[in-house]
């Protein structure tokens, strides 16, 4: 059973590995599903990194959407743009305040959540899931280690 699943997983990832330009070491335990790591920044961004695809889905945290108020407009980066960790990649507008969003990791923007153009309120209703902002193909997966865990992130704003 285990080996069958392991083989299926490997078969799926082979074409992706061939397409990757930078080598990355992936520890794969047979039978395990894709590993998705979630890390946070002090500026209230979250990255959910899927180490199989090398893509990080960037969103804002639930705490951030709460402190922003009703989101009326979301500015997203252009697909294909190259970003460096710390670059401004977009903004969220709510109750007359435009708040910039910063790239938590470096890479190339592969996808943006177009739904937010017509439904900015999704950011309030489902900030870390359906309200994802963009997906970045990480150029340096080790940058994930520099980000905060959920506990450390919460410590930055909890009284």
């Amino acid at each position, binding site marked *: 059973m285990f080996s069958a699943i392991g083989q299926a997983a490997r078969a799926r990832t082979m074409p992706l590995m061939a397409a990757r330009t930078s080598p990355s070491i992936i520890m794969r335990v047979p039978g395990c599903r894709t590993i998705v790591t979630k890390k946070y920044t002090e*500026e209230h961004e979250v990255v959910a990194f899927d180490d199989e695809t090398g893509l990080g889905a960037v969103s804002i945290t639930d705490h951030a959407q*709460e*402190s*922003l*108020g009703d989101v*009326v*407009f979301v*500015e997203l980066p252009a697909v294909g743009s190259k970003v460096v960790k710390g670059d*401004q990649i977009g*903004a969220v*507008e*709510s*109750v*007359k*305040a*435009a*708040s*910039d969003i*910063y790239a938590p990791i470096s890479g190339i923007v592969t996808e943006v959540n177009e739904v937010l153009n017509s439904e900015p309120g999704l950011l309030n209703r489902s900030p870390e899931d359906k309200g994802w902002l963009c997906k970045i193909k990480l150029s340096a997966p080790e940058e994930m280690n520099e980000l905060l865990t959920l506990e450390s992130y919460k410590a*930055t*704003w*909890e*009284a």
Partner: protein
Amino acid sequence: MPLPPVFYHYFCTPLPYTRTLLLQEKIHQLQLAARRSSSHHDILLLLEHRPVYTSGRRQTEQELHAERARLTSIGAEFAVAARGGQLTYHGPGQLVGYPLLDLARTSPPIGIRDYICVMQKMIQSYLLLTHGITHVPSDHTGVFLDPVTKIASIGVQVRHRLTTHGFAINVTKEPLEWFGQVVACGLVDVKAGCIAEAKGKNTRVEDVVPGIVDAFGTLYGRDMVKLYPQNAGELGEAILALEEDALAAGEWLNAPSPN
């Protein structure tokens, strides 16, 4: 530990908008750099602008193109700002306030919604206590005298928890005709009101400044200290340079020029 004071400065001459944007940007950069050693200051700039229409981040250049042409032809500047909110007017007779604050001075940091909420309350409180002007509650951000009359607007930008842009309060009737040329803030049926009309008494912008400084200090819980640009290093120099530019720019139009 108590919070440091907010340093405020009132510009006596109406300022050109784009040059003031540059000043805000400069102060933002100075704050960002000084914050690493916790030596940055919170600033409140109080001023009037020369006639200008500004739009926020939401509108595209395509949408703005026709408006830009029309509004510059009646004698105003036109600028795009990275603040929240939509099209609005600034000009002589309207007090503009730019609080340039670090929201993360407190632990936990002030949330954006709270920051805006306090700004709104500050204006409402000032109008009531100093002028006996009551407001009506509204779902829209800003301060309304009645459901179709807006006396003050708010539009803010936050980057790395440092704020720029801020609020605008109509004091004299001078801005009203300019507001009449556009749909401000995306609110179709709403017209602009001002302190002078609401009170039935002439009021000057410079007379409003001390009360606003007080209200700001009270509502945000901060001591307000007057800034002396001559003694304020790089920040002070930038302020003085802008004031010189403003004086050199000469007269401005009191009313939109007829087409």
